[in-house]
Each structure stands twice: as C-alpha cells, then as structure tokens.
C-alpha cells in the first residue's frame, strides 16, 4: 500500500464525518460550499482537493445519509444542494460518539507511561 492510498483510506471515514457535520451546522449546501467550509474550519492544517468531496458526497447519498437536489445559489447560479437526512443525523451522532471514544482510547494508550 503506497502513501497515497493510505492517506485516502483514512480520509474516507473522516471526510464523511466532516461532511455530515458541515451539513448539520450549515444546513443544505452545495459541494463547493462544503469543501470551502471544511477547509476553513481545519485552517491551513488540512490541504484538501475540493474535487475529492464529490465521491464522498455520492457515497453518502447512496447510503441514504444525505439527499441532493438542484437549486439556485446566492449568486443566482444553478448548484446541486445536499441536505442531511434523518438517517444521516443518526449516523452523525453515532460516528461522533465512536470517534470520541476511539480517539480517547488511542490518546490514553499513547499517553500511558507504564508498560508493565
């Protein structure tokens, strides 16, 4: 497995989570807006190809976590808007908990001093 692939593996899970969170806090939004928002929130630490949100969006849509429809942007442009579904909301909650749990375990594990 090369570097590129390893990165994208980690990405698949976290990207979905970030998209769901973005949609939860921002309401319906188009792909560009989502990518923008993720980049803003993470600051410079995450260099993100905007193009990579689209496969993740499609997958979430297939999994029925989000739905999409064509609408008009604030500048009167046609854009595809994504919206969180009830299932998506549940999933976001679940994954947030899982993530917190997992990261606390890993954090504690890495912090542990004694290896008896």
């Amino acid at each position, binding site marked *: 497995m090369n570097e590129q692939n390893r990165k994208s593996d980690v990405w698949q899970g976290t990207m979905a989570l970030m998209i769901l969170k973005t949609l939860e806090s921002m309401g319906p939004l*188009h*792909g*560009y*807006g989502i990518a923008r928002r993720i980049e803003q929130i993470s600051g410079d630490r995450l260099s993100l*190809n*905007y*193009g*990579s949100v*689209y*496969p993740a969006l*499609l*997958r979430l849509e*297939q999994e029925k976590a989000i739905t999409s429809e064509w609408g008009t*942007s604030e*500048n009167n*442009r*046609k*854009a*595809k808007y994504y919206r969180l579904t009830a299932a998506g909301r549940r999933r976001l909650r679940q994954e947030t908990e899982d993530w917190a749990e997992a990261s606390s375990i890993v954090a504690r594990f890495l912090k542990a001093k004694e290896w008896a």
Partner: protein
Amino acid sequence: MKTLWAWWARLGGLFSRNRREREMADEFSSHFEMHVADNIRAGMKPEEAQREAMLKFGSMEAARESVREVARPLWIETTFQDLRYALRNLRLNPGFATAGVLSLALGIGASVAIYTVVDNLLLRPLPYPDAQQLVMLYETNPHRNFQHNVISPANYFDWKAQSTTFTGLGAFFDFHVILGDGKRSEEVDAQAVSGEVLPILQVEPIRGRVFTLQEDKDDAHVAVISYRLWQSWFGGDEGILGRQIQVNSRPFTVIGVLPPDFYFNARSSDIWLTLGLNPAENLRKTQGRWMWAVARLKPGVKLRQAQAEMSGIARRLEAAYPEFNRGWGIDVEPLRDSLVGQVKTSLLVLLGAVALLLSVACANVANLLLARYSARSREIAVRGALGAARGRLVRQLLTESVVLGLIGGVLGLGLAYFAVSGLVAMAPRDLTKSVAISFDLRIVSFAFLVALLTSIVFGLAPALMASRNDLNRNLHAESRSSTGTGSGMRRWLVALEVGCSVALLAGAGLLFRTLVGLQAVNPGIDDHNLLTFRVTLPSKRYAEPKRVEFFARAAEQLSHLPGVRSASAVSYLPFNGPAAGTKVDIFGRPPAKPGEELIGTIRTVLPGYFRTMGIPLVRGRDFTAADDQTNTPHRFIVNEAFVRKFLSGQEPIGTQISALMENENPFGEIVGVVGDVKEGTLDKEPTPTVYYIHAHITYGEMVFVMRSETDPLALAGPARKVIKQLDPELPVSQLRTMETVVRQTFSRQQFSAVLLGGFSLASLVLACIGIYGILAYSVTQRTREIGVRVALGAEPGNIVRIVVGSGARPVIAGAVAGMLMALALSGLMKSLLYGVGPRDPLTFVAAPVLLAVVALIAAYLPARRAARVSPMEALRTE
C-alpha cells in the same frame, strides 16, 4: 418483455449513466463558477482566479474517475460475491444440492411440459389474422341431445341469404382422396371447402391463388395443395401451378400452394378441393346434415349478437320447413373452443395437478433449506454479528435459492422438452388433431419465470426466518436448547406437502377407477385378434355393380388367407367416430309428427360381419352372399336396442321397416336381430341401429375386418397383397387392430390418469422426503432428551411412539386438508369420470390411507434410530 429490459437496464444504471455524467459535469462547472467568482471578489484577476480554482480542485480526471467508481452499482459486485458463495455452498453440500435440484427439476419440468400443451392449445392466438372473429356454426337438437351437429346444405344457403352479422360464411368437410400422378397413388387427407372458406381464414397462398366463388359453384376440377405435399410429392417444383394430378382417378389442375404453417380443423389436410354445392337443387329433399360451417364476424360484432341473429333464423327455418327443421337450432361457437373441444377439461385438470406438484416441490425445497439454515444458524449469526445487515443476509440466502431454482429450471426445461414429445405421442388424437404443439422461446421464458418465482417463493420465508434469528441466542446456544430454526414452519410445510399429495392421489385414484371401469365395459364386440383397414374405391373407375363385386371378392379372398377365421367389411367401424344416422319408419304406423321421428344409426355390412366382430346373432339370420345383390329386395338386420326402443312388444322378424337414406327407400323386412354395440365410446349407450347389406347402399369406401387365429398384425402383409392383386392402385389405409381402435376412445381418460398417477407418485416421494427429513433432523436435535428418557427407563417402543407421533400431527392435518381440497376440486373432473362419482368414497378413503402408510414408513426410520440411542453416548455428545 421490453418493459422488463428497461427495468433491468435502469437497475443496472445503464440508462442513468449518461444522466449522471451530465449532472456531474454540471455540478463541477457550477463549482468552478462559484469558486472563480469568489476569487474575483477576493481581488484576483480573472486568469489567476481560474488557475487557483483549478489548483484547489485537484485533478479533474481523478475526481471524475472516483465519482464513477462510487457510482458503479454495488449490487453487481455483491451479486457476484453472493453467487460465488452460493455455488460454494451447494458444492460443499452435494446431498442437499441434489435433493433440491431434483425436486425442482421435477416440479418445474412437469409444469413446463403441461404448460406447453395448454399454451399451444388454449392460450396462443390461432394462426389466422383476427382469429377471435372466427366462429363455427353448428346445428343443435336439444331434444335428441345432439350438440355440435353437422349442418344441412339447404339450411346453409338460407343462413347465407338471411344473416347480416358475418363478413363471410362458408362450408367444408374433411375427407380423404386417392391422389395419383400416373406413376404412384396414395391416400391423402383432403378438405372440401366452399369458395368462401379460405378467404374467411385470410390465408395467402405462397404460390398461385385459391378458388373463386365461380369455380366452387361449377365444381371446377381445380386443387390447392399444402406446402408439405408440394415439398414431399412434387419436390418443391416451381412449375407446380397448372400441373395435372389425379384425384380419385379424375384429372385436376393445381392452382395454388398454401403456406407451410397453414392448417384448418384437421392438421393432416394436404389437398383442398371445391365443395361444389348447387343452391338451385332442392337439397332438403336429397341431402341430410353432413357438413360443417365456419364464419367470420363483422368487425365490432359480438358473438352474442351473431348467436341472437342465428337463433332467429333457426326459428324462421323451423316454421318454414317443419318436416326438416322441427327441434333444430343453431349454435355459434368461437373457433378455438371448437378446435379444443373436450380436451379442455383434461388440460385444466392436469394444469391444476401440476400446480399442486410444483407446490409440493417448493415446500420440499423450502423444508430442505430450513434444515440447512438451521444447521448454519451459527454461521449466519456470526455474519450478522460481524455487521451484515439483515437485508444483506436475506439477499445472500435468496441468491442461494435462486441459484438452486435456476439449476432446477434448466434441468426441468430439458425434462419438459422430452416430456412434451412423449405427451404428444400418447395424447388423445383430438388433442393434437387440429392444433400444432411447438416448444419455443415463449416456453423457455415461461420456464425461466417459473424457476425464478418458485425460488423466491420457497427461498424467501426460510431466508427471512434464518436472518431474524436472535444473534445472541444463536451464538451462545448449542443446538440442544432449541428444536432448530423454523421447526414450526417445517411442520406446516410437511402438512402442505401431504395435503397436495392427498389431493393428487385422490384425483389419480378417481381416474384409475374410471379406467378400470371402462376396461371392464363390454363393448358388444370381441376386440381381440381383429385386424381392420380401410379401402376406398375411386368412383370414376368403380360404378355401383363393380363396387359390390370388388368388396365381395376381396372379403372372400381375405377370409381364405391362412390364419384367418373370417373376414368381412363395414361402412363405419364402431368406436371410430360417428356413423350415419337418419329417420326410420316402421310399416303400418302413422307417420311421425315432425320432431318426433325415430332416428337410427345406419351401418352397411358384408355377410359374415357379425361373426367376424363377435357380435352375437340373437334371432333370425345373418346376411348371406345371396342378399348381397343389387336386384334383391331390401332386407335388414337390427340391434336389440332397436327392438327395445322402437318395436316394444312386436315380433321383430318379418317387420317391415324403411330408413331415409336415398332417393327411393322401399320398405324391407327385418331378417335378424344382433347384440348391441356401444356407440362411439364405451361410456355411451348403444343406439338403435339398422344394418344394410352392402349391395343396397354401395359405399365406395369400406373398412375390412379380419378375425385371426393369432396375432392380427401378422396378417397385415398378406392382406395388403390381396388388395394389391385385385387393384394395384388402391391404397390400404388406417391399418390397426380393433383393440387399438377401442382403446383410443378412452385415451383422454388414460392420458389424464397416467399423468396424474405420475404426478401423485412424484409428490408422494417428495412428501416422504419431507417427513423423513424433519423427523431425522428432530431426532438429531433431541438426542440428549431421548438419552435422558432412555436413562430414566423409557422402552424403545415408547421412543418410537414419541418420534412417530411428533411426525403424525402434520401428516394428519395435511391429509384432512388434502381431502377437503380434493372434495372441492374433484367436481371439475366429472366429465372425465365413468362409473365412479367425483366423491367416490373408496378413493377418498384409500388416498389418505395410502399416504399415511407411506408416511409412517418414512417416519419409522428416524424413530428406530432414536430408539437405539444409548444414553451414555447421548449425554456425552455435547
């Protein structure tokens, strides 16, 4: 089919792919526009804004490719996974796979075979344009119980003149002619048709033309031939039109060839000739009822309207010609009903039977699947625990049953292919006489559908049940605590199998009792060691005196062949279709009122006929060679039914009678009375019959009968030789033993009985497998319990009783339900039965008893194994 494909394609995303590509392009470009606009608002120059947006986006091609990858439907991939998994599972369990596939192959094969016949006969459109507008017209006489009677040419012309609901009305009849071309001559089946018939059917000749109305009126010597005859006799000669042929020794000109798939009423017709009726003649005086009529309804006209009009015409004709038409009506019937006729009942019964068999096969496979799944319940639970969604599990299990179903379907289709040719070979003649049976893509798609549907039917419930299982319980629990997945459902399935089997057994039982009853019927003749064959003399070369001479000499020579006891001939062989029937007068009685005439069956015989056929001479004497002379006075022999019904109390010998057969019908005395022969079929009563000596009704076509010392078919060669020596141009046709002729009259019942018997046997075997399976499984499950019982002192007998008893409940429930089902359905087969009622008590007791006995045997085997369980071993097993 088209919608199915569209549906399929949409499912596969094949259609929506273009749409998705377009949407993706739109989405990406709107993304860019927004990004560029934002950049410009942030102060960038346009080119810079664009470059930045592109850079941020990353590789466009990579983004497209990964969207496409996500869009690639998941189901294709998972289906392949499921398929591999299913095949591996089947391979690992060859016993289960074989039992399942064979059950299904049997069920599907039988269904497809019967469906093929039903489809061809009842469902497909007939091969004529707008065939639903075609009708047959019959005369009917309810008082005499004549339905579907032949019609009178005189009435036919009046119908034509008065009716307004048809675009065309034509008459025809089937017969046979001797066809010759100067080199060889053969008997071929022919149809005489009025000029309207072929245009009514809208058949387009592939060469030449059909008859004109004028040619029909003139009885022109022109002929239209079948494609088959064109190919086989004339080698497809392109110069066929205008060719001269000999029909019954008269010259005819071929004017047309009909297309290869054309047939009407009789599939064997090879030549069509004009009917040549002359409407100017007083046909009511000279001709009775002898031909058939076909018509095409005007567009938009309903059968009901035509029937109403024809009934009105019949009433007018009855009033105008009371002597001829009193009591006669007209029946208008769709052509298909006429062609299929009585076979419909047999087919519907068989279709019902095959549905039952298919249900049993499905239940059996569902049963097997449940057992398999409960053995795999831990594996299924583990998959669930590892995160497989329930829907996914159900789909995986369903894939297995669909694979099973499709393999069974392919085998079943193969089975059906051979079964259909077997079916057609042993089918009653009227089943295949008028409609072709073909096995084509339509049937293959039906088989595919049946396989798919059945696999969902038998697979869905077990799959749902297996996947619903409480994961925890199945992961933790060993089999000891549960009686297994869906064991309640398995009992229901066994009950279903038993029920269907009992219903099938009852149906088969009724038909077999009918067959036995028919075989025990005394036909009135001794049909053993009798050979029959037909010889037709062309009327051109054989005038009346020559006909009498020919048949007398032929019978004489045939009776002198070694191994022949006696030989004679008759106009209409018994049990071989209808004979002539006409009005009979008894001398000294006032003329009968119209509609109340005595009607007798008329047969013409040669001397020695009764002795040869084994018909007893009750009184008086047989005809002698001296009677067989044209110039002798009329003398008659009648049967006992005639004496009983028409001459009650009167001395028959010497009574003068006359029958309306020819222009002059002088009275003649009765010289003998012979025993009754059943008329038409064995289940019909004998009709009053008058026998003429051949010299007085000199038919040119007679059926020879020869009584042999031993095997009658051994006489076939010598008999042919005798005829050939008398006239080398005369073909011998329909050479058969009398036993064959008689047996054909109940081939309908025999056909249904054999098939139903086969179906019920198959379903019995399947039900037994089901019972055995469920009990054997429960014994394995309850080994510990049984061990405890034995340890506590249970006798082997007790154990057997417990196990058999647990199997008995579904069997009894199923048997009762099956009896009720059979009682409800058996009324449908009433017209097939003879000598037993549709509720025959013996059958309805025997069927469940037979099943119970077989079921007990199936249950005893696992019970015996249970009784041998050693407590130590049982307790140690887990």
